[in-house]
C-alpha cells in the first residue's frame, strides 16, 4: 500500500514538472532540438563493398617472362606469404648481392618521433638473413634490380592519400619488431633508437668501427634433428637435415623464417645452457607439419609412422632400401636428377641406359670407370662384354677368352677415374 502511494505521488510530481518545465523552457527545448538535428548523424549509407583483387606493383622478378604460377601457388603472392613452391625448382632469382657488398651500417633517420634515429647494423643482419629469407626479407618485391629506397613506396608521413601501404615508420617497425620482440620479449624503444638529441653520426661511427671487422658467425647446418614429440606411439621424428638441403636443393627459407635467430638470440635462453642440444619449440602442430606437407602429402595425411617412430631413425640407405648402390658414381647427385617426378621415387629402372643415353660405343669414355680399354676392346660393342647392356653386372669374358674372368683379367689398363 505504501509503495502504491509513493508511486502515485511520483507520477503526479512528474506531471506537474512537465507542465511547469514546458512553459518555462519550451523555447530552449526547441533550440536544443534544432542544434541537435544539425549536429547529429545517426544513419550510415548502404554498404556493398566487394573486395577487389589487389593490383600489385610489378617490380623485379615479377617482370620476368615466366608465369607466376611456375613458382607461386597462390593468386597474390606477397612478402609475408610468397607461397613459393617448395619442392625442387629452378632458381629464377639470379642477381643476388652478398651481405658484404651492402653497407655495414645504415642510419635510419627519415622518420621523426619521440626518439632519435637508429644506426642499423645492416651487414650482420644481412648475414643472419641468409638463413632466414635472404635480402628479400626486407627488400621485398625488389630482389633483382637496383635496391629501391624504402620510401619509394612507404610514405614518410602518416597522414597521406594512399592508406593501403603502411607508412615508413610502420614498415620499419613491423620489420624489426616482428623478430626483435620475440627474442627480447619486449617492445622497448631504446634497444634500437638513440635518445633524442644524441648525435646519430657518432653512434653510426662507433658501430661502423665495430662491425667493419666483425662478421656474424657462419651459420651451420645440423646433419639431423631429432624431435621428441607428444605423438601417441612414435614419439620420435628424425629429420635428416643435410639430406633435404643437399639432395633436394631446398633453400633455408623454405622452412625457416626468423626462428633461427631466436635459437641463439632469445634473451630468456641466456639463462639456460646455450649449448644444450635440447630446445623446446614454440611452434604449433600446423607450423611443424606445414613445411613437410608440401612434399610429403600422403604421409602427412594418412601415414604418421612414416616420420613418427619409436626411436630415432637410421639415415636412409639407398642400397639397403632399393638395392641400388649410389656409390661410387651417384653419391653427389640431387635426388631429383634421377627421380624426375616430384614425390614419386618408386619404380625406377635400374638399367643405366634408361637414364644414360650416351652409353654407346664411341661416345662413352671408358676411363671414367677406372679402366682404359686397349685397342682391341675399344672396337667392340658394349653388349659384347656387358650382356644386355647390364652395366651394373660384371662383364662376361668367357665368351671369347676361355678361363678369363673380371677383375682378375682386365681389358686394358687401370686408369685414374
Amino acid at each position, binding site marked *: 500500500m505504501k509503495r502504491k502511494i509513493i508511486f502515485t505521488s511520483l507520477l503526479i510530481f512528474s506531471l506537474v514538472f512537465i507542465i511547469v518545465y514546458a512553459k518555462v523552457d519550451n523555447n530552449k527545448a526547441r533550440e536544443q532540438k534544432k542544434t541537435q538535428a544539425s549536429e547529429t548523424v545517426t544513419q550510415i549509407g548502404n554498404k556493398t563493398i566487394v573486395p577487389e583483387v589487389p593490383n600489385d606493383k610489378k617490380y623485379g622478378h615479377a617482370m620476368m617472362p615466366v608465369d607466376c604460377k611456375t613458382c607461386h601457388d597462390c593468386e597474390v603472392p606477397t612478402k609475408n606469404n610468397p607461397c613459393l613452391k617448395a619442392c625442387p625448382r629452378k632458381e629464377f632469382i639470379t642477381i643476388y648481392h652478398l651481405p658484404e657488398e651492402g653497407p655495414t651500417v645504415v642510419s635510419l633517420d627519415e622518420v621523426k618521433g619521440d626518439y632519435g634515429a637508429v644506426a642499423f647494423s645492416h651487414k650482420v643482419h644481412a648475414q643472419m638473413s641468409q638463413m632466414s629469407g635472404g635480402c628479400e626479407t626486407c627488400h621485398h618485391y625488389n630482389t633483382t634490380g637496383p635496391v629501391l629506397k624504402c620510401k619509394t613506396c612507404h610514405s614518410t608521413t602518416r597522414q597521406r592519400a594512399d592508406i*593501403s601501404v603502411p607508412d615508413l615508420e610502420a614498415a620499419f617497425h613491423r620489420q624489426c619488431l616482428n623478430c626483435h620482440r620475440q627474442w627480447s620479449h619486449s617492445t622497448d624503444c631504446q634497444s634500437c633508437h638513440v635518445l633524442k638529441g644524441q648525435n646519430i653520426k657518432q653512434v653510426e661511427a662507433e658501430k661502423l668501427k665495430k662491425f667493419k671487422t666483425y662478421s656474424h658467425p657462419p651459420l651451420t647446418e645440423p646433419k639431423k634433428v631429432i624431435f621428441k614429440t607428444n605423438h601417441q606411439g612414435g614419439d620420435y621424428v628424425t629429420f635428416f637435415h643435410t639430406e633435404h638441403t643437399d639432395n633436394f636443393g631446398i633453400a633455408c627459407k623454405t622452412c625457416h623464417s626468423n626462428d633461427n635467430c631466436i635459437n641463439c638470440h632469445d634473451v630468456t635462453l641466456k639463462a639456460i645452457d646455450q649449448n644444450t642440444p635440447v630446445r623446446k619449440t614454440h611452434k604449433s602442430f600446423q607450423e611443424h607439419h606445414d613445411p613437410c606437407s608440401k612434399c610429403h602429402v600422403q604421409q602427412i595425411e594418412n601415414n604418421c609412422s612414416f616420420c613418427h617412430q619409436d626411436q630415432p631413425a637410421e639415415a636412409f640407405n639407398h642400397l639397403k632400401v632399393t638395392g641400388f648402390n649410389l656409390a661410387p658414381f651417384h653419391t653427389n647427385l640431387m635426388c631429383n636428377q634421377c627421380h624426375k617426378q616430384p614425390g614419386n621415387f618408386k619404380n625406377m629402372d635400374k638399367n643405366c641406359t634408361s637414364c644414360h643415353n650416351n652409353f654407346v660405343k664411341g661416345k662413352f669414355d671408358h676411363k671414367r670407370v677406372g679402366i682404359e680399354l686397349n685397342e682391341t676392346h675399344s672396337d667392340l660393342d658394349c653388349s659384347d662384354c656387358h650382356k644386355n647392356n647390364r652395366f651394373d653386372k660384371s662383364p662376361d669374358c668367357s665368351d671369347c677368352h676361355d678361363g678369363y674372368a673380371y677383375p682378375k683379367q682386365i681389358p686394358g689398363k687401370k686408369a685414374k677415374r
Partner: protein
Amino acid sequence: MSDNARRDFLKQVGITTAATVGLSSITAKADEYKSGEVQGVLVDIGVCVGCRNCERACQVAHNLPAGDPEEYHNRDVYKEFRRPSTHSLTVVNEFENPKNKLIPYDVKYQCMHCNHPACVSACIVGAFTKNRNGAVTWDTNKCIGCRYCMVACPFQIPTFEYDKAIQPKIMKCDFCFERTKEGLLPACVANCPVEALTYGNRDELLVLAKKRIARYPDKYIQKVFGEDEVGGTSWLYIAPVDFEKLMFPTLGDKPAPGVTEAIQHGIFSYFIPPLALFGWLGGVMWLSKRKKELTESETKKEEDK
C-alpha cells in the same frame, strides 16, 4: 503493488509510449547521412605489438596523467584484463596466441563510435552527440550524471568519475574530436609505431580491411568486426582469431537501443521536456533499486537462517 503488478504496469507504459510516439522518428534522419564524411579507424590485431604507445598518446592528448614512456613497456599489466576507465580512455589487453606464444595477440579497446550509438539514444538530456565525422562526443554542461549511457553501451565504454564529488564526468574516448577538427590524426593513430591503427574514411577502411583479409587468408579470420555490429561502428577490427576469444561481445546487426530510443525521440518530437522524463525515469530507477535492495536483504535473511 505486487512485483507482478508493477512489471505489468511498466510494460504497459513502454508499449503505450512506443505506440503513441511511433518508431518512425528514428529513421527520419536518414537523409542527413553524407557517406564521405564518416571517418573511422581500422585496428589490425594481426599487426599490433602491444607497445601501449597509443595508451600514452591518449593520456597526453587528454591531459590525463601519462607517466614515463618506458613504464608502458612493462608487460605485467597484461596479467589482468582491463577496461577503459576514467583514468585511461583506451587500454590494450593481451591474449595468448596458441600458434606462437612469442607473438601474443594485443587488442586495443576504446569507444567504437557506433553509427547508431546507444549512448546517444539513452542519454535523456542529449549530452551525447553523434558528430558528422563519426565521433560520439559528450558534453559536460548537459550531463546530469544519470549514467544511462553506461548501461546502454553494448561495449561497456562510458565510465563515471565516482571518485569526484564535484562535477564528476563521464569519461570515454572522444575520437580526438578536438584534434581531428584541426586536421590532426587522433593521438593514438599518430603514435602507433607499427600503424596497427589506420585512420581514414570508413567506407575506404572497409575496402582496405577486406583486401587485407583476402591477401592473407591464412592470417586473418573472414570478418571485419564493426562492419555490421549494432548497425556498424566507426572503429573497425580485423583479427587472426575469433573475436569472442578477444573478449568482444557477440552482437547482432541491429542498433542496440530499442524502446528507449523510441521513447526519447518521441518525447523530443512532442516537446516534452527531458527533465520531466528524467523525473519519471528516476522514479522507475528508484523503484528497481529498491527492489534490488529488497531481494538482497531477502537473500541475506535466507543466508542468515
